């Protein structure tokens, strides 16, 4: 059963001994019934859309598995309805083949049924004795393989048509891939927009409030006499509020850095470099601003690479380079550490690789033992 289509199976010498003839027979013999069901449901589908034909389509999809021409599944489409039409058209040839099979089987079985007082009419003549029936039976046996090939032929033609209709062709597949890619990009863009919105909300809301709080507590510490019992707790509250402000800023920065939206990639990368515990040199040649989504993805690749380098690489210097040339934005982070970094090993790079891919970009990691480690991302823009 290694063959993928009935045509491959027919080509084999052992075809008649395989399960394929029986599949073909089962398929063709069930076609007239399927045709009747198709004809019954087609008017509804034509009026009410493909979904109206869903029950029959479901059965058809299962039946097609017999000849290994199953559709890829998925929602019921007009292609399924077209296929039902093909099934309906195949009803007559299938019936003829079915009758032929009955005839051939009757020929083969004729010696068993013939008795002196019963005359068997076998189409080409009448037989009265077993001896007379033998040539008919031999003819039937000779015709049977031929007939099985005809069954295979019909099933093969049908499965080819079904494949063409139900399996997305190159163009359809491409169209669908483009749709998937676009939807993925929209998701990433929406995700990014959401982060900016949250950042903005926190900036306008919580951050402002905490700044006010810090200020009020600052005034209170000034106004309370130093020996008052409240002085110490107010001073403590003041210190905590200040710490909260620092932490809130870090948190907001992690969601979406303001420097990135306000000033673009070079400033934001420089800011990242300033935060790194390992000395970082930044070289940027980004004359124009890419889309916000691409900027964010590039930024977070560099942020992740810098944080990985700080945690694991043992590096003493890191270089960050960003360039925009020929509509491709490239960011690259190279450290002089001991290498051996593994992208699959709990690193945030995997998620970032998905994010890059969704934007049509690529993320690559090179980290031989003994280093250096280079993380590189490219984005079309």
């Amino acid at each position, binding site marked *: 059963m290694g063959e993928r289509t009935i045509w491959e199976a027919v080509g084999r010498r052992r075809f008649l001994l395989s399960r394929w003839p029986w599949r073909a027979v089962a398929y063709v013999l069930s076609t007239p019934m399927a045709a009747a069901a198709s004809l019954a449901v087609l008017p509804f589908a034509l009026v009410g859309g493909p979904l109206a034909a869903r029950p029959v389509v479901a059965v058809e999809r299962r039946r097609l598995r017999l000849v290994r021409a199953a559709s890829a599944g998925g929602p019921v489409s007009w292609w399924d309805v077209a296929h039902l039409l093909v099934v309906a058209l195949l009803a007559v040839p299938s019936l003829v083949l079915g009758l032929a099979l009955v005839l051939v089987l009757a020929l083969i079985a004729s010696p068993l049924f013939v008795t002196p007082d019963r005359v068997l009419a076998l189409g080409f003549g009448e037989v009265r004795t077993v001896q007379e029936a033998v040539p008919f039976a031999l003819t039937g046996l000779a015709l049977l393989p031929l007939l099985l090939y005809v069954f295979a032929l019909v099933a093969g033609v049908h499965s080819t048509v079904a494949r063409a209709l139900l399996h997305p062709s190159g163009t359809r597949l491409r169209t669908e891939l483009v749709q998937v890619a676009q939807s993925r990009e929209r998701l990433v863009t929406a995700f990014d927009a959401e982060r900016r919105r949250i950042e903005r909300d926190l900036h306008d809301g919580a951050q402002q409030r905490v700044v006010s709080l810090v200020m009020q507590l600052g*005034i209170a510490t000034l106004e309370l006499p130093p020996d008052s019992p409240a002085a110490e707790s107010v001073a403590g509250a003041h210190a905590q509020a200040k710490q909260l402000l620092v932490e809130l800023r870090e948190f907001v920065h992690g969601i979406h850095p303001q420097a990135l939206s306000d000033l673009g990639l070079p400033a934001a990368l*420089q800011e990242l470099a300033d935060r790194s515990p390992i000395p970082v040199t930044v070289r940027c040649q980004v004359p124009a601003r890419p889309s916000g989504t691409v900027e964010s993805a590039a930024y977070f690749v560099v942020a992740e690479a810098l944080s990985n380098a700080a945690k694991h690489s043992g590096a003493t210097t890191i270089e960050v380079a960003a360039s925009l040339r020929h509509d491709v934005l490239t960011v690259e982070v190279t450290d002089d550490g001991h290498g051996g970094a593994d992208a699959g090993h709990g690193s945030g790079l995997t998620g970032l690789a998905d994010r890059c891919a969704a934007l049509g970009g690529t993320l690559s990691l090179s980290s031989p033992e003994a280093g250096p480690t280079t993380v590189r991302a490219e984005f079309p823009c």
Partner: protein
Amino acid sequence: MLIRTVLAEDGALLREGLAALLDRFGFQVVAAVADADALVAAVTDHAPDLVVTDIRMPPGFSDEGLRAAVRLRRIRPDLPVVALSQYVETSYAADLLDSGTGSGVGYLLKDRVGDVREFIAVLRRVAAGGTVVDPDVVRTLLKRNPLAGLSNREREVLGLVAEGYANAGIAQHLVISEAAVNKHVGNIFTKLGLAPGEDRNRRVLATLTYLRG
């Protein structure tokens, strides 16, 4: 004498809080506005002694406050401006220092409003023509470019110069004599190639050199 101040901050809560704070510590808030255009209009109307502005304001919520301040200092190059920012951005400080006469500017993280005394002192220093840059900005820049030629002590002194301290203040801060500070500052000027007798304020130029790394 009251320092007549125009305040620009889009968050109503913070704007009112700041206005109250300023009123209390000897400033007169002649206008408290919520966006950059209103800031320009208010400064034109009131000709204040000091402008305190948020950097990120409507309509674009990016650096409207800073752009407005730079524009105002083109018209009135010695207009004292203190810009407040939610995060450290060295280029904002550099833009401010590049504007107008290069002095009478301050760039602070918003967090500093909590340290009321220091905050008020900074506003007064800037109103008097001083230049103050947030210690976080200074730290970042120091890290970015350690101004290789300077000794640690000189870098420390330069950092305080950039924060707007006079020599006496620096001496107090570092617990050294004022004569020692004078010597350090002289060395810094020499190392940064700032010859004496030039027309411009060497402290400001040193700060600028420092900020540009």
